[in-house]
């Protein structure tokens, strides 16, 4: 029975990705029989290369991805080196999970309002300080170089990498490495960089690549913060795929393949960067330099981290305020009045979106948990690592650009009459939810003390009974946490919902993105609030449920 889980997971996970990739690749070479194209030519590619502004779009995508990744990694490394092991660091850890649970686009919307020339910061400073009675004509968001886009991405990706690094630090025994380095006379930051970082980095390498791939091919955040004349490649590909001129689909397919090539190019660049840093780092480590004054880098790390954190928090706060504002015009620092009318106006539409979001998130998360436990249990029983965890198969959906296979997956779903069906949508969500759930659960699951099992078996319990009565209850906390992560991932999905849902299953995220293009910030605020509230509720539940379940078991209490 357990044997079935790993292949099932692989098929469910990799199947749609590969099939989708094929479904994108073939039209890129002008092969899509349902539209009467059987040519297998390069026409789509020549048309793609003739698109106005293609070079700018490509450059924008690449630079966004690379700069975002480099700065995020630098920030995380600096923060860890400067503060790892301190009380401030532990306090920051507590903020990470809620920050991570907020969908990308919600953060982007908040930031956009915060920093734009008519945004909250400017409203607070005008006119008493700036002298502006009307917003200045400054190009802050949607700037030509994508700086605001990078800022928005770093605000989300740095916390993600930080969380991954924290997990890795536990495994790499970072705490003691740090102490040993310091006893050798190394300054704390230099000691961390020289003794701990080299052991941590290999473990966060795949997450870093996922960040890189995401940055190169992001769509939803880009629709809020990226320039549009022209837009980054991925945004243009999605637009072309949804055009009423079906011939554009071939160009879109070729564009999706180009998008893949960009990610590959980015990864290649990163690989070379890694080699360079390693070569240089090895020489640096062996110089024996103990380091000097560290106040400046420490200060930079704190200011950068705090700026990002505060920007995200105040951006989200602004959305909350908007959702209850009557009207709020420049340069007023606060709305003219507060009202619940906006919420009442949206009540019916919101209910639908909340229901779709919830049902998708709950079902895909639950299924992912079962699948993950099945695979991990198989690994525990056989003592072997499956292909899933060994070769990084899990990261395939996370590293491959979504447009590259969602587009093909949509064609296949249409052919199999599954498009617009709930089950198809749930499946595509699963492809993205499962890897996160598995990764979040695996370490704790593997660390479980096998002696409990043996004791249980010796007392005459069946393996299933041991699993259900001993192992799973003991692992309830990590299982709940992994569930919360999966839930948050599902809530945040934009493109999969758009492509497989045929518009029939609006979720909070698709509605928020649709509204953000225009409309009223008051309605955007409502959707942003809910988008944030659902994952937060899931995280709260993940904390509360085990505490409640074990309220009568002293040994299972949370020790803090």
């Amino acid at each position, binding site marked *: 029975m357990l044997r079935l889980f790993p292949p099932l997971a692989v098929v469910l996970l990799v199947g749609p990705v590969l099939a989708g990739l094929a479904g994108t690749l073939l039209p890129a070479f002008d092969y899509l029989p349902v539209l009467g194209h059987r040519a297998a030519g390069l026409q789509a590619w020549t048309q793609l290369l003739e698109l106005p502004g293609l070079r700018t779009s490509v450059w924008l995508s690449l630079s966004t991805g690379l700069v975002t990744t480099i700065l995020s990694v630098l920030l995380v490394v600096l923060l860890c080196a400067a503060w790892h092991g301190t009380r401030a660091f532990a306090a920051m850890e507590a903020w990470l999970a809620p920050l991570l649970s907020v969908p990308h686009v919600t953060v982007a919307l908040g930031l956009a309002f915060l920093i734009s020339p008519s945004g909250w910061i400017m409203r607070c400073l005008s006119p008493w300080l700036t002298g502006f009675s009307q917003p200045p004509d400054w190009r802050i968001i949607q700037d030509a170089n994508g700086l605001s886009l990078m800022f928005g991405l770093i605000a989300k990706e740095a916390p993600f990498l930080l969380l991954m690094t924290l997990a890795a630090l536990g495994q790499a025994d970072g705490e003691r490495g740090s102490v040993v380095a310091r006893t050798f006379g190394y300054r704390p930051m230099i000691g961390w960089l020289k003794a701990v970082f080299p052991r941590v980095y290999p473990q966060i390498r795949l997450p870093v690549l996922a960040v890189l791939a995401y940055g190169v091919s992001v769509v939803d955040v880009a629709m809020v913060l990226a320039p549009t004349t022209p837009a980054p490649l991925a945004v243009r590909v999605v637009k072309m795929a*949804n055009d009423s*001129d079906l011939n554009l689909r071939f160009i879109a397919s070729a564009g999706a393949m180009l998008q893949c090539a960009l990610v590959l190019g980015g990864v290649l660049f990163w690989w070379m960067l890694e080699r360079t840093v390693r070569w240089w780092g090895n020489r640096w480590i062996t110089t024996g330099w103990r380091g000097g004054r560290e106040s400046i880098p420490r200060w930079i790390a704190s200011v950068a981290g705090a700026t990002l954190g505060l920007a995200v928090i105040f951006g989200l706060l602004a959305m909350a305020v908007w959702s209850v504002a009557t009207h709020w015009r420049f340069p007023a620092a606060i709305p003219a009045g507060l009202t619940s009318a906006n919420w009442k106006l949206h009540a019916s539409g919101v209910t639908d979106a909340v229901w779709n979001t919830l049902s998708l998130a709950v079902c895909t998360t639950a299924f992912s948990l079962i699948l993950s436990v099945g695979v991990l249990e198989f690994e525990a029983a056989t003592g072997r690592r499956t292909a899933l965890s060994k070769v990084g198969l899990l990261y395939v959906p996370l590293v491959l650009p979504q447009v590259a296979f969602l587009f093909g997956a949509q064609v296949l779903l249409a052919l199999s009459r599954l498009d617009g069906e709930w089950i198809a949508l749930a499946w595509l969500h699963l492809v993205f939810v499962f890897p996160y759930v598995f990764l979040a659960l695996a370490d704790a699951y593997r660390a479980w003390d096998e002696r409990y099992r043996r004791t249980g078996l010796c007392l005459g319990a069946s393996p299933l009974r041991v699993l259900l009565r001993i192992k799973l209850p003991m692992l309830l906390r990590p299982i709940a946490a992994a569930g919360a992560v999966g839930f948050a991932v599902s809530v945040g999905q934009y493109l999969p919902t758009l492509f497989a849902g045929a*518009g029939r299953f609006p979720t909070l995220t698709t509605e928020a993105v649709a509204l953000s293009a225009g409309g009223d910030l008051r309605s955007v605020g409502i959707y942003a609030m809910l988008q944030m509230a659902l994952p937060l509720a899931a995280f709260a539940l993940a904390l509360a449920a085990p505490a409640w379940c074990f309220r009568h078991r002293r040994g299972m209490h949370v020790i803090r």
Partner: protein
Amino acid sequence: MSTPVHLRILGALFRRFLSLGVLAILGLTGLPPVRAADTNSWTATLAEAQGQTVYWNAWGGDDRVNAYIAWAGVEAKKRFRIEVRHVKLGDTAEAVSRVLAEKAAGKDVRGSVDLIWINGENFSAMKQHGLLHGPFVDRLPNFRWVDTDNKPTLVDFTVPAEGLEAPWSMGQFVFLRESRRVPDPPRSAAALLAWAKVNPGRFNYPQPPDFTGTTFLKQVLLELAQDRSALCRPVEEAQFAEISAPLWDYLDELHPVMWRNGRVFPANGPAQTRQLADGEIDIALSFSPEAASSAIESGQLPDSVRTFVWKGGTIANASFLAIPFNSRAKSGAMVLIDFLLSPEAQARKADPRHLGSLTVLDVDKLSPADQAIFKALPKGKATLSPEELGTPLPEPHPYWMDRLEKQWLTRYAAGR
């Protein structure tokens, strides 16, 4: 040059019509009274519609439109037991492409779109590819109230509707201004350019292919083109370059003095309205003459905003409702459309407290009671009277929309 240009275009349209045969002529001469057989089949339609779920694909970028659709859904449920789901589109083309893809994949029944709010190039594309159900419009009992004589309810951007889509809403291109900063509005393309040069950074337009943005392009071109009649049909590439040249010269001059130097554009009309509310710009565009009043009503715009139009007239068109060929709820969709054409639903739509967009009905044809409802509608303070609204100009052929959008992208959205 005795006849005004727009009349000549209307004349040309009319001639096109005559060549279209019986159906269109029937439409033009007014509808025959509802016959007994029709009533029977309509009763059957009503019965069949019960319990159906209608997925109404409509642009979802405007809160007031969304609220109106939600209201219609509640009413349809109450009166006809029809479930209405609003699929909020970012761009109507998304739904067109979905239906087209379904047809390509051989999905001839159980399609995902039941009702679509549409006009212009999207209708033209659907009609051309045979993606529409119908003709069904003359089966709708409430269609007899529609003004088919004085409003462009039977032609859509010069393309005959042929009963494949029912008129739903009238629009006319208008400009909104912050009256405290623009006391004397620029009432022509040339005046707008001059104003923008004196007030740099205070005007913009939504980025084509957004329809408000593209309409601005067409509006400027109609005003600047040497030969307006060329715009009501497709032309050769060389001719396109020649006729559209004044537009590009104009934009080349306008963009440097626009908001963000013409390098960033609002995504659509509502986004631009937000910028007007935030004081980012002083002049905005809309396709609804009641937009300003209605946004003042909802608190979105300050009550100093006013509406104005250009002296030479502005583009007017109707938007329509159509049913895709593979809809799984055709009866439900038809019953819903018929309800939306009822005097009651149209009056609510025309009410600036709710949506405030012009009705497609001929109010004089209605019963005295219904007429009274329309007459009692409040007129918003920022709404122009029909006289002030000026001459409606007909939409150019969809070809122009497509070509102008492509050309615009090449010229202004290709980066450095």
